[in-house]
């Protein structure tokens, strides 16, 4: 079998939750077009789904399952790919809430950091003998039309999708083997303290962060914190 022909540069990207480096190629003009087409559709689901598709196309490691990546991993990979493929600087404009003027900024994507909030355990104890192991929201949520269309019970539905396993004494039950209805019944019966701990885990997932500091026309110091892809590219 002949060796593959390498006609594009290869970059290594450290995946935050896996603490491991994987190889990627830059995305191409035809893939940039997919994002513009999704933007025309104007639904966030379409754009996020295209981002997942592009990250999948550009991954050179067959062991990397994009669907299993945490959403913050996927966003970080896309940000790095954008820096390699187009430019590491992005122009953004924001309206100041105080003087209502629009300010332009240039964000250097190389300076975007991952922030890991205070460590919260993914093991949520229900009693001394039972509990749940949680996982971060995965990129497969982008294809979950039912979830993306939710207008209420967002946190409850997210919890259902982020339970990895449930244990009771020596028995371990994998959430993927059970129907959503069964998991919903299980979560509805959790006590308030356990439910709050589960929420705390999901509200403290790592995220990207870039701080913009400026003075507005009233000479007041202002700060904008960019934390999601939407903030960087006004998708």
């Amino acid at each position, binding site marked *: 079998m002949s060796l593959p022909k390498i006609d594009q540069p290869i970059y290594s990207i450290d995946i935050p939750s896996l603490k491991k480096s994987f190889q990627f190629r830059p995305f*191409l003009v035809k893939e940039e077009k997919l994002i513009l087409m999704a933007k025309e559709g104007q639904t966030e689901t379409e754009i996020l789904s295209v981002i997942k598709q592009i990250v999948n196309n550009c991954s050179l490691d067959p062991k990397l399952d994009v669907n299993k990546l945490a959403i913050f991993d996927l966003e970080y990979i896309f940000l790095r790919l954008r820096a390699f493929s187009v430019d590491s600087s992005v122009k953004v404009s924001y309206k100041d809430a105080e003087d209502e003027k629009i300010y332009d900024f240039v964000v250097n994507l190389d300076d975007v950091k991952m922030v890991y909030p205070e460590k919260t355990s993914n093991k949520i104890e229900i009693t001394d003998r039972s509990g749940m192991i949680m996982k971060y929201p995965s990129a497969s949520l982008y294809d979950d039309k039912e979830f993306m269309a939710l207008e209420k019970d967002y946190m409850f539905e997210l919890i259902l999708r982020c339970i990895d396993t449930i244990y009771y004494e020596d028995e371990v039950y994998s959430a993927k083997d059970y129907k959503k209805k069964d998991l919903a019944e299980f979560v509805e019966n959790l006590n308030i303290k356990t439910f709050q701990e589960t929420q705390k885990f999901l509200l403290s997932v790592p995220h990207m962060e870039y701080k913009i500091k400026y003075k507005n026309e009233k000479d007041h110091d202002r700060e904008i914190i960019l934390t999601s892809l939407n903030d960087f590219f006004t998708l």
Partner: protein
Amino acid sequence: MSYNSLGNYYKTMFSLVQHHKYSLSDIENLMPFERDIYVDMLLAYLKELEEAKSK
């Protein structure tokens, strides 16, 4: 992205193919930063031609 709309994307592609004889598949297989470099170089070249003509 370097293009802010799909309309701008198609206009640029059409100009490159129709007026400058680039191949669409070749452009689509470039990395976006390469495409931007070629477009910038083409614009600089056209400006030089324009200046030479006006002399």
